[in-house]
């Protein structure tokens, strides 16, 4: 009895269905006391509606037949389903080919002016401070016209 209560506690504490299932199989299905606390098949049947209690399959057919006519659009036959799958496959393949071709074309096209956006090395050159022999130096920066080259001349300050 105590053990059943411990199992109940574990069941409530472990929300995973796998662990709960293990507890059911390992204990509940073998324990007469726990089985007595469960609804049996006959009790369940008395609460449920059984197929034998129902009639009216003919009525059901009358309602369904009007809508189940073969001419109703949307009915899938194995051939139609195959055709749909092939159509989807073809569309997907075409899209992939077009995307690849577009990508390749974009890579091939030269893009004039794009390189000009890049800033020249001379423009990016920056010198904050120059020291010669531990003391601030006299510094001259030269850039020959028409080139990207930069010369820095530093001499001891007088």
């Amino acid at each position: 009895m105590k053990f059943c209560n411990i199992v109940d506690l574990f069941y409530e504490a472990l929300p995973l269905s796998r662990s709960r299932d293990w507890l059911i199989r390992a204990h509940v299905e073998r324990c007469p006391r726990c089985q007595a606390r469960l609804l049996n098949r006959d009790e369940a049947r008395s609460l449920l509606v059984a197929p034998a209690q129902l009639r009216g399959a003919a009525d059901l057919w009358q309602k369904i037949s009007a809508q189940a006519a073969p001419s109703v659009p949307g009915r899938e036959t194995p051939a139609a389903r195959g055709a749909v799958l092939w159509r989807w496959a073809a569309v997907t393949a075409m899209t992939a080919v077009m995307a690849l071709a577009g990508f390749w074309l974009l890579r091939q096209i030269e893009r004039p002016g794009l390189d000009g956006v890049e800033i020249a090395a001379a423009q990016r050159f920056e010198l904050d401070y120059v020291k010669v022999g531990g003391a601030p130096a006299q510094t001259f920066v030269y850039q020959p016209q028409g080139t990207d080259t930069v010369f820095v001349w530093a001499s001891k300050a007088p």
Partner: protein
Amino acid sequence: MDEQETIEGCLRGDPVSERAMVEAYGVLVLSVALNVLGNRQDAEDVCQEAFLQAFRHLARYDRERSFKTWLLTIAYRRALDMLRKRRRFREFATRARFEPAATGERREPGPAAAAPLPSKLLEALSPRERLALTLWANEGYAAKDISEVLACSASTARVYLFNARRKIKALLEKDHEILQHR
């Protein structure tokens, strides 16, 4: 006409085979829908939709599996759709301060009006638990078969069934105690 012949006939769109299928499984699907939904009219609608969907997509049925289980899976999904629709309608009716009876469709009671309804006790269960209990009690399904209809693992199906059996038993015992103390 055996099941395979009926299925072949339905695939060809043969009305005789379709009728045979409805006659073979109609009351079963209706009873499952009724036990899940608790409402006869909705259960009939679900039953019709399930058969129509089955006829439309019969080409997708895997012959390795049980046809009954496949059909019940469709019916269960349609029943869940119906429950969602009902919930949305209830929410709308509450928000709009309408009386549901005034906004709902008025339907003539069908010939199955005398059909029984499942016990109110089942309202304490979730739709999954109700389905698990129905398939176990009425169809003798084991956890593995129930899991196919519910599209879950056998462990999960066993837990749903266990919870359903335990909850209803506890409610029955509570009712019994109340009656004894009166």
